[in-house]
């Protein structure tokens, strides 16, 4: 754009704070994670296990009342290596944003992968949570610092496909 054509503008900063109401299902998940436990919820119709749970199954529209203790290990469903700084994001690039599928869960959540060279990370790789010291635990998945490889044999990614019960 020609400099002469530019109109005046001014910077107007806005900020926003909000209070998050977790709801009963997520509250139970958060209370468990504050003690180092990962709790998912199972759909009574299709059998899908959700973590973090939101109290209902989006497939069937029914409450997921049954709670399932999940392990802190699983595999990488897929991932990306982020090479650019993201405005407002505290983590220095490059970092790995991975879809973590815990054993026994039918849905993934995003978390970091560390303690491995970037080029060695693979879809299907087995990973395990590395927890912060217990004194730092809060009601957050951030109690897990990151996931690291277990060294076990990779899983076949096709085995992650959900088959309704």
């Amino acid at each position, binding site marked *: 754009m020609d400099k002469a054509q530019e109109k005046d503008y001014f910077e107007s900063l806005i900020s926003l704070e909000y209070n998050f109401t977790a709801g009963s299902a997520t509250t139970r998940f958060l209370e468990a994670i504050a003690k180092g436990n990962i709790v998912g919820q199972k759909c009574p119709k299709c059998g899908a296990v959700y973590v973090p749970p939101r109290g209902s199954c989006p497939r069937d529209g029914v409450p997921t009342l049954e709670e399932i203790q999940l392990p802190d290990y699983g595999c990488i469903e*897929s991932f990306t290596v982020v090479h650019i700084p993201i405005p407002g994001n505290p983590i220095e690039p490059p970092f790995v944003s991975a879809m973590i599928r815990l054993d026994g869960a039918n849905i993934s959540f995003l978390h970091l992968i560390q303690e491995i060279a970037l080029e060695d990370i693979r879809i299907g790789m087995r990973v395990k949570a590395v927890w912060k010291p217990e004194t730092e635990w809060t009601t957050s998945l951030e109690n897990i610092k990151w996931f690291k490889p277990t060294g076990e044999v990779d899983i076949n990614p096709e085995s992650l496909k959900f088959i309704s019960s």
Partner: protein
Amino acid sequence: MIPAAVIGIGQTKYDSKRRDVSMPGLIREAIDKAIIQAGVEWQDIDAVVLGKAPDMFEGVMMPELFLADAIGAYNKPLLRVHTAGSVGGSTAIMAATHITSGQYKCVLTVSFEKQSESNATWALSPKYPYTPHINAGAGGYFAPYMREYIRRSKAPEHIGWQVAVKDRRNANLNPLAHLQIPNIDLEMVKNTPMLWEPLRYLESCPSSDGACALVIASKEVAKGKNAAWIKGMSIRSEGTLSAGRDEVNPLAGQMCAKDIYSQAGITNPLKEIDCAEIYVPFSWYEPMWLENLGFAELNQGWKFTDSGKTELSGEIPFNMSGGVLSSNPIGASGMIRFGEAALQVMGLAGEHQVDNANVAMGHAYGGAAQFFAMWIVSSHQ
């Protein structure tokens, strides 16, 4: 269905910073062009439908309030639509249903984004409660799905570069396109920095300012005018976090495509559709959507790209205008696809016109690859 046709398409020049115009000025630039092309007057417009991606992208809440006068909605029905990145498409469909319902005879629809006024990557990367702050914009969100597509299809790395080159070569034929890179080639793309593996800088869409407007009319109003007749249109959604959802080949996308083909009487999209404007914000989405929309068999879409089938002179040209990879005012990007499809069947696409284009497809997707909007337009009623 009561017939409806696009009779006017208006687009702004797309650029990284349209500092020469305000937000209302930008939108009015597109509207004026659409109304002039349609050959209608302000008083002929029965209703206005406005589309816009998340308000956080510019920090202006409910822009339809302060834009009501600029878009000519004074004392007229005004509806604002939001379905994330697919909003330009779903907005055009909402406007068209005003006609196909028989309620109105002539409707103006417009969508826009002035990305330079804030930062969409910031807006897409907030700290969510109780999760680590690692979400990294749209590219960061979609990159794992592209990696999974590459794993399933065993597509070679250069496919992404080819899409990036093809769309930018098309953009060089479109004076409105944001990116104009005359000497674009594979070497240039593969030498650009990695942003979100497997995506390099030139495999990603730009941030653009721009607006697109359409005038959609009934048979009576369109009579005697150059028109793109809407033969099929559809919207489909799916939940973000649902077990068994295939983000690489979303069911909602397949269903949406099937619906418009069925409405338009299309049984073989590859043979019966002359060209398509498909929402490809990152290179790998071309082969992914070729499969999702039924142009190619599963895991074979990349071979279409590789053999030049999606080039301007190919069997099924994709993104003749340069696509989202060359201009991305997010809220408008879907409507640009729908409008460019209309321009093709009206024979008004200029240097990026496909010869004898009679049937064209417009497509948009948004959210977590969960919102889809598509239409088929034809030169024949």
